[in-house]
């Protein structure tokens, strides 16, 4: 808990005055390799001691929850276009809960490893294991959150991270007489879930939303076997042709809004 106070953020540069507390810093998750994950906790705007804890994870894989979740989605601040100051997010999720942003795995954002080879053999398994170690040690630093109503939230490739971590927590709780996690559930958005159905669904969306031609749609269905882990060269060619020649200059992440030039 002493370290908790050392992690307290008094104020961020260019931040408007706020009533809630915020903390950020590192938790070592592997001493041998020197892996440490960076977190940012923005406590609830009112009665934080009575509000649930929500862990937010972005996907990628390799993308930062500070960059996306905290700074342009659910966090209390938005960064203004000068990139030098912050303004308040009217619909911040810390109005309802204590939000914990985690940059995971090591190598994402401020999270680091002292073993550079770690950056080239990350994957679902180690990410989930390191995230569990992070939570166990984070709870030691913030014991007031032990047994607090706890949820996990995320989007995109965190459609892997969130259920994988939830499963580890459920197993951890079963293995301990006095579990510290009161995990109630999880919520995921536009989440990678099942390779085969996700891929078929994506190509179907492209065609039904008139982003690709009939020819491309037929060519993709003919050349792509999404049940295989590796796509064939013909399949890649069909997909790349559609994306590079038929999409046009759109933002695939939001197909009806202007793309960032």
């Amino acid at each position, binding site marked *: 808990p002493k370290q908790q106070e050392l992690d307290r953020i008094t104020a961020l540069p260019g931040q408007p005055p706020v009533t809630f507390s915020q903390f950020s810093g590192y938790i070592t998750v592997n001493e041998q390799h020197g892996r440490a994950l960076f977190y940012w906790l923005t406590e609830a705007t009112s009665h934080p001691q009575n509000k649930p804890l929500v862990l937010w994870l972005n996907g990628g894989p390799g*993308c930062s929850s500070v960059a996306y979740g905290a700074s342009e989605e659910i966090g209390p601040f938005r960064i203004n276009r*000068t990139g030098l100051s912050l303004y308040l997010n009217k619909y911040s999720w810390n109005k309802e809960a204590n939000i914990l942003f985690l940059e995971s795995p090591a190598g994402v954002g401020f999270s680091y490893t002292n073993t550079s080879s770690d950056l080239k053999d990350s994957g679902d398994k180690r990410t989930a294991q390191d995230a569990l170690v992070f939570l166990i040690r984070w709870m030691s630093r913030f014991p007031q959150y032990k047994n607090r109503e706890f949820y996990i939230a995320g989007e995109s490739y965190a459609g892997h991270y969130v259920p994988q971590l939830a499963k580890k927590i459920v197993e951890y709780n079963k293995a301990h007489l006095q579990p510290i996690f009161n995990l109630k559930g999880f919520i995921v958005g*536009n989440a990678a879930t099942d390779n085969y159905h996700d891929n078929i669904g994506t190509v179907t969306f492209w065609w039904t939303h008139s982003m690709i031609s009939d020819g491309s749609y037929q060519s993709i269905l003919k050349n792509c076997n999404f049940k295989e882990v590796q796509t064939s060269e013909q399949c890649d060619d069909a997909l790349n042709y559609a994306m590079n020649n038929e999409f046009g200059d759109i933002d695939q992440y939001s197909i009806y809004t202007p793309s960032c030039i």
Partner: protein
Amino acid sequence: CTENYAEKYYNQPEVQKAMHANVTGIPYKWTACSDVLIKYWNDSETSLLPTYKKLIAAGLRIWVFSGDTDSVVPVTATRFSLNHLNLTVQTRWYPWYAGNQVGGWTEVYNGLTFATVRGAGHEVPLFQPKRAFILFKSFLAGKELPTS
């Protein structure tokens, strides 16, 4: 272009100092996504549906939502995947409301709630912050989305 603002803000030394970040002098700039990690990503489960089944059986509250203008992991992808769970319907498909507008559509299954968010891209709270906030409040409360 919002992530460009973050690239600038979090690489300022005074911001890193205030956040107790980069205390070991990471040998590369802070960036929103790591090219190295995604390029060399090692193991990736082909399907999380078996894990969903286990976690539904464990009694967790599970909500899955889709911004319906995203084409990267679009709503059809999620519906095809969830359909494969063969869950029974608890509350039939209905439009949910945010103010006097349809916020999206939803169906409550035994063990899982699915909802769309109308007019939202991949980062739902970025494009539809109010609708995302209502979704979040309903999820935390364990209540179905508003019918009016």
